[in-house]
């Protein structure tokens, strides 16, 4: 039973849906229509049925709210017709969250050297380089990406593209 505890928590919710037109709009519309937050959203097809007429997509939403609100979000998502399963990974045991970022840093001289050195320390890969720029590819938890971006900011951070969070439960548990 949830209580009326007002403390907010972050929740990583995975939703397995029928891969059909409009399904993402249904999910997003539900969040905006009911005033829930979306901190991050990721979606891609993950399963194709043997008959190949249907496939499933997995949506990962990072949201925040009180325990009561998060329970509501789950129930509201579950009630959408094309939704198969809803799982609050952050409440149902240990899980892993990863995000990928492509980061463009423009600069020359010592700033450029420092950027490359830090990238190495963070295990970011250089996937493109010119005499005045690098593009780094970095994978990790959201806070690791945030930390790296903070370091790049004074070194010529020019552009970022992030995927949003993909998450999965640890061990044998599946959605």
């Amino acid at each position, binding site marked *: *039973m949830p209580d009326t505890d007002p403390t907010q928590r972050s929740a990583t919710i995975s939703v397995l849906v029928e891969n059909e*037109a409009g399904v993402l709009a*249904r999910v997003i*519309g539900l969040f905006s229509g009911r005033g829930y937050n979306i901190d991050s959203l990721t979606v891609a097809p993950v399963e194709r049925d043997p008959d190949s007429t249907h496939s499933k997509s997995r949506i990962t939403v990072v949201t925040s709210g009180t325990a*009561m609100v998060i*329970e509501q979000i789950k*129930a509201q998502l579950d009630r959408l*017709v094309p939704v198969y399963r809803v799982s609050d990974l952050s409440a149902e045991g240990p899980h892993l969250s990863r995000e990928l970022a492509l980061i463009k840093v423009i600069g020359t001289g010592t700033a450029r050297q420092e950027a490359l050195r830090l990238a190495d320390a963070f295990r970011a890969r250089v996937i493109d380089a010119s005499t005045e720029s690098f593009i780094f590819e970095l994978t990790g938890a959201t806070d690791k990406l945030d930390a790296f971006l903070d370091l790049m900011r004074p070194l010529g951070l020019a552009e970022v593209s992030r995927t949003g969070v993909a998450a999965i439960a640890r061990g044998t548990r599946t959605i």
Partner: protein
Amino acid sequence: MDGSIMAPDIMKSGAEAVLRALKAQGVDVIFGYPGGAVLPLYDALFQQNAIRHILVRHEQAAVHAAEGYARSTGKVGVVLVTSGPGATNAVTGLVDALMDSIPIVCLSGQVPTHLIGNDAFQEADTTGITRPATKHNYLVKKSSDLARVVHEAFQVARTGRPGPVLIDLPKDILINPAPYCDPSTEPHRSYRPRTEPDPARIDAAIALLKRSERPIVYAGGGIINAGPEASKLLLEFVRLTGFPCTTTLMGLGAYPASDPQFLGMLGMHGTFEANLAMHGADVMLNLGARFDDRVTGRLNAFSPGSKKIHADIDPSSINKSVVVDVAIIGDAAAILRALITAWRADEVRQNREPLAKWWQQIDFWRSKNSMRFTQPRDPGSIIKPQYAIERLYKATRGQAKETYITTEVGQHQMWAAQHFKFDKPNRWMTSGGLGTMGYGLPAAMGVQVAHPDALVIDIAGEASILMNIQEMGTLAQYRLPVKIFILNNRYMGMVRQWQELLHGSRYSESYSEALPDFVKLAESFHGVGLRAEKIEDLDRVIAEMIAVDRPVIADICVDQLENVFPMIPSGAAHNEMLLGPEHKNEEGGYTGKSVTDEGLVLV
């Protein structure tokens, strides 16, 4: 599986495939309005006789009519509208059905698939617009999906928590040949609502209920949606337990109003006894209601001392606004059946002594007679609106015909809910959740189509009725003898009441200026117009209205300044209820006390 190897029937047009699917779903009537994009469907309708089409005068009315049809029969109501404005006009009706959980399938036309997204003539993004207005919607882009989608739409509309489903049908899909298939016997891939309750939760509920000292049953529209069997089971359960029972606005008729264990409606304009019993209860059993803000009043003061059991078919209703102790997911009839069995099987004996004391307390509250009013009887006296409803109710009781009541929205709706008594489910059609003015006349139309021999009355206000007055034309065309009983106080009464209580009697834009002559208006639409201006006219007008076998508008001129009492002001708790001027000198009586600032922001 023997059918799977057979080639499906190829229908010569998508429109024919749609009609065949509708017939397979048991559809006998459609409420609609034609237009360019749905011409193929209208052509197919023309060439058959199994499905009747009722031509409304506005698409909003088509949906309300289908709601009235659905609510009074338990079947799915079907609507057919064209693309663009046809679909956008239907939106209010769809949201109304969504809020009140009414099963509707709305077929909307769409521009041909190759024009979608081109800003074509009468194009609107109908699935986009109606996504939050429906339980689910579909855009059919392939002829091979057509029949399956129609069948699925009916399944989604009628099962689980019922609701409106829209199918957007591009014109080329309606014209091109399409395969037909019968409804699938396989369960839906992702949509599987739970109907059978968890026995452990039933036992937990019974454990609380058996030991309760001040119990209350709070039943809602979910009982009506679960079918007449659920109402019978509710009566059986309440009789078995000896508990008091109240219902929501949507639940009126789910429990017989004439039964002594019925406390009347609860909530903002509910009875004193129902609200105080909710406030003072130690165990509350909510069956198919959703703790609506019109019921709970101020949330942190709502039934503060009770253990709450909430039975609902929709898991998202649980803990949405009120945190409960035991949640039971399932169909109301299945839950009641399980509760009755478990109550009987449980060996703990119910202690009837505290229950008897509880009833003494309730009877004291009841003795306040919180809905009483004074009707001056001298000839020439102005009619009190409550009295008009009371007389209407008395007059209908003597009828051999079944009586069905619809309402518009406002003061008259509340007076109807308070003073008209319903002993059976499916006899009361009102817009509860959305509060749609203009609902009552088209809804009555739908009810009369479903029950041609019944007495169908739309209890209306003079402002609301004008919102869909064009449907008088539909009544005339199909000879639907709907009676429109207007409580005419020349104000948007509920707006006026709130302005009086909350806004210093500044009656901003709430006066019904330049009203039509309703008698002549009825006559111009081939109906009968009647008027009661004084108390001595009332019974005669009611009798004549009922006797006439044609559409009637009865214009009942009532006291302009009457307010709906009792009332829980916005932001107040159940035990802070205002009683009417009748109770001026009693504790809790109307003091003219204004609403708190906190309450002012609430609607």
